[in-house]
């Protein structure tokens, strides 16, 4: 079997972790969202009012919970899987290629799931009641043309950046993630200091959306490239 495909299969072998756990998390977040909505309704909020819609759409539970889990999956996809991949006879290049393939597949799967659920929510008039579970700001406010890039790139972002942290741990031990985390924070702040005036202009001319897409794509490419370089010289002991 092709090395990259074999490495991707190494990750996909854990079907429950890749395909089912994100559904469990989404399901639990949805139930809690509904319960909170019921609580507000019982407290006197008016379902469907502008305040209700605005408040409901600010709920970021699904995005944040899934983001946390996907980042963990990204970390373990390298930190604990890389030594086993070498044991099975994978090359480092094939492992990183397979891991990226798995991340793209997982992101595509989640995009399909969340798109289907969002369309279902919209088609049923927000579950026949007016509950906003998937039609929320962090998932594009019910706009599928925004939902798809948000979920796909967001998932890929979490998986690849998690993988980068896993690779830094594999290469440098506990110092790796600490230095990498501090470095990324400093780099982000310096970037913001340098680009803030143009960001304000971009915001004013409504280009922020595309800037974010480009920035996320750049981070994904950087994370994948850096992972290759870190694992190239990593020693498993």
């Amino acid at each position, binding site marked *: *079997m092709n*090395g990259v*495909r*074999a490495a991707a*299969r*190494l990750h996909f*072998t*854990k079907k*429950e*972790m890749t395909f089912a756990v994100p559904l469990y998390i989404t399901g639990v977040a949805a139930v809690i969202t509904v319960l909170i909505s019921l609580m507000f309704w019982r407290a006197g909020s008016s379902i469907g009012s502008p305040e209700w819609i605005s408040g409901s759409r600010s709920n970021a539970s699904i995005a944040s919970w899934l983001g946390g889990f996907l980042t963990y999956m990204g970390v*373990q996809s390298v930190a*604990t*899987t890389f*030594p*086993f991949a*070498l*044991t*099975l*006879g*994978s*090359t*480092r*290049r*094939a492992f990183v290629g397979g891991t990226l393939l798995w991340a793209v597949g997982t992101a595509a799967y989640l995009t399909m799931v969340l798109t289907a659920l969002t369309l279902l929510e919209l088609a049923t008039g927000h579950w026949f009641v007016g509950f906003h579970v998937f039609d929320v700001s962090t998932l594009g406010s019910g706009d599928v043309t925004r939902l798809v890039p948000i979920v796909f790139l967001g998932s890929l972002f979490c998986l690849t950046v998690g993988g980068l942290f896993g690779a830094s741990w594999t290469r440098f031990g506990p110092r790796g993630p600490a230095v990498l985390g501090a470095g990324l924070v400093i780099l982000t702040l310096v970037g913001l200091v340098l680009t803030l005036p143009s960001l304000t202009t971009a915001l004013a001319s409504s280009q922020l959306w595309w800037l974010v897409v480009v920035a996320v794509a750049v981070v994904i490419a950087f994370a994948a490239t850096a992972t290759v370089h870190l694992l190239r010289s990593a*020693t*498993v*002991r």
Partner: protein
Amino acid sequence: MNHAIELRSVTRTFRDTRALDDVGLSIPTGAICGLLGRNGAGKTTMMSLVAGHDRPSRGEVLVHGEEPFENASVLSGISFVRDNQRYPDDYYLQHVLRIAPSFAPRWDADLAAELVARFRLPEGTPVKKYSRGQLSGVAIVLGLASRAPVTLLDEPYLGLDASARTLFHEILVRDVGEAPRTVLLSTHLIDESESLFSHVVLMDRGRIVVQTDADEARQLATCVTGLADAVEAFCRGREVLRAHAVAGLRAVTVAGPVDDDARSLAADLNVRIKGASLQELAIAHGSGDALENSPKEGVSA
């Protein structure tokens, strides 16, 4: 001779630690080679280089004439499971058995099933919660069922009970007979496994001190016991590898075979001599610390 594994002047350093020091090694194709030595001798480091998990700081590592590092065609013919092997989070035995054939083109599913059954590996427990012996069982499944032309077994006995160790010996001998391959096996249970070995490599502090076929290795040293003065007289002019004394008695391991001269001298001095086993040879070379700063003859450790 066709060599499956060759190391040429290989040195591997980790910061200030020299794990391998100018190692040269050749293991013939089809050999079952025992890799012996104390903890920290460099056995796992050497296996790691052979398996392409690591690169030497200096020198060259060849497997069937090619460097293994990042070489997909070579790596597909090597199996190496570490003694402290890590498995992906939430991996169960079924995951291991499902994925291994994707990487091992010669994977034998029937043999894997037999090993799982005979080592009694639990299927409902995550691999990372396995006992030490069960982890060794998984490593043996991966190592043997892969039928890799170069199979590296790193301390496969760790935690195994006597029945499981015997089972491993039986299946290794049977399966290597059915599908010949080169096996490099590191172990501290030398007496139990020495009958398996066609070749022996003995390491100490990053260097290879013995590499030969197993029969020759058993001729490399002689154990001498008797009254201290008589033993000292026997050892005069011989290289003492290890010595210890109890009351007026002394037991010494000296380099060299039990030949007619030695037998004759032993009879004259009234000392007992016998050829050193592989375990005694390994212990003798591993006890170098005590002899390092002392004259080589007549030393009590």
